[in-house]
């Protein structure tokens, strides 16, 4: 049972303390880590994948991997960032797999993102338009370009943060964002997002 104090308010145990307890096999600590970060992982997965279909599987895989490999986490207080890195890696893998399945005709449909279903009705009109355009465009891009673009334009991460999350160099991130921007601009110029 999850202790009542294990919240994000700061009054509960820190991530580092939970990681140490979870490493010792404490089930409550594992559940606390899951519940504390489940919404973040769900949201990040949803925005990276651009659809709801694979989110549950991804979330389960991410936490199963993270909780099984807690002994590898050198800085227990960095659990959240580490988790995000795993989410990015798993999402990238799913996007690649889907593109491969579509390529060989084993995945139906041409769209793996539904821009209209993604954006909240509470979004200001200009933000909603830009988000829909972005998601309509990025689905044609390979994962190596799509992931940095979403991390930058939707999540608002810095270049350094994206490098950390994607496990690539800063130069690679800059190059991929530049290439992604150019391809987005080209697609926009052709009106393909409409």
């Amino acid at each position, binding site marked *: 049972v999850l202790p009542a104090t294990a919240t994000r308010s700061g009054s509960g145990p820190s991530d580092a303390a939970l990681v140490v307890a979870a490493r010792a096999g404490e089930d409550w600590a594992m559940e606390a880590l899951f519940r504390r970060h489940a919404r973040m992982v769900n949201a990040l997965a949803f925005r990276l994948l651009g659809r709801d279909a694979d989110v549950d599987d991804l979330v389960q895989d991410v936490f199963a991997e993270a909780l099984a490999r807690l002994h590898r986490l050198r800085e227990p207080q960095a659990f959240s960032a580490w988790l995000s890195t795993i989410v990015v890696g798993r999402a990238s893998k799913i996007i*690649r797999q889907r593109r491969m399945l579509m390529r060989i005709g084993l995945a139906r449909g041409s769209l793996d993102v539904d821009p209209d279903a993604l954006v909240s009705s509470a979004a200001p009109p200009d933000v909603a338009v830009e988000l829909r355009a972005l998601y309509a465009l990025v689905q044609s891009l390979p994962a190596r370009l799509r992931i940095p673009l979403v991390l930058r334009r939707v999540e608002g991460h810095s270049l350094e943060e994206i490098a950390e999350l994607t496990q690539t160099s800063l130069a690679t991130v800059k190059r991929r964002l530049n290439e992604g921007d150019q391809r987005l601009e080209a697609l926009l110029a052709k009106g393909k997002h409409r």
Partner: protein
Amino acid sequence: MTPNRVPPARYVEPNLDEPRIARQYAGVRTALARDARTRRLVVPALVAAMVAVLLVAGLVRSRSGPARSELAAFETGPGAGHTVELSDGSRLELGASTRLGVNELANGSVALVLERGVVVADVAPRKDRAFKIRAAGHEVRVVGTRFEVRIDQERLSVSVERGRVEVAADGSGAVVRLLGAGESWSTKLPSSAVAAAPHAAPSGATPSAPEATVASDTPAAEVDPVPAPSATAATGSSSPHAKADGARALFERAQRARAEGRLADAKSAFRELRERYPDDPRAPLAAFELGRLELASSGDARGASRSLDQAARSAPKGSALQEDALARRVDALDAAGDVKECESARRAYLDRFPAGVHRATVAARCKKR
């Protein structure tokens, strides 16, 4: 489009409620319990297998004189596979009835030998380390990727899920094929290689060195997977049976025929699919595979060029298939010796995919001879 000053992430949120979170956590617990069970079963089995194999390797050395360079080996029985995790995070997923020898496992180099079965390698990217898997006279060289190597009856197959690998002829080191994500390659094994694999197993304990035998019997010029076509290759089958099958059945028939070495049948089926079902999602891939077969099996570079052009035109814009088809078309025209058309195709590829994975290979084509 420019990045927003305020990240709009808050407007892209999944529908998340307590029952959904509870279901997810139940899934996590199930996965953790399954992993724990697997570890409990796999580790003793692997240790036992390694000990047994090491003992047998010792016998081989004492009988044959020259020592095998194998440090250890992983071996699975017919019932189930195993997963091995290396210290750098790379994972090796062994299928059933597989034997994977470890020749080198150091910080700067990992060298494995697949003697039979199948291994899926998920290799952590590291520029400072060479990662190789030798199998049946070939060497697969890796830099940060996930791929499968399989010895199945009379064929060696390599397929890449992400990243890139080089397939090289063992011994000569000549690169046979460069494979990108989603690509696969296979070759029919010479009879010596097929016979060698079982003898490499512990029970064989033969004094011969299977790797050396395979390498000498498999020169680089002979490793292409496809034999010469039959005289019926270009007839373009339109049998009533095939017409009734539909696109899926045609595609499966073509794949099966190719795997069995019946290349004329494979080409016929791919051609029929392309012509009868041009709107089917498999049609671009059928044209692509047809082009590859025409180029590799019959040396019909111009026919291959036409098929690959069709594949590139019908593939989704900007897709990996379109990129591969355009790149292969350059290869075909280069093989045909048509420098002018080759240069035009090369421009088409580089214009459309200036940062494409084949750019270096394509840029080197179309040289006047």
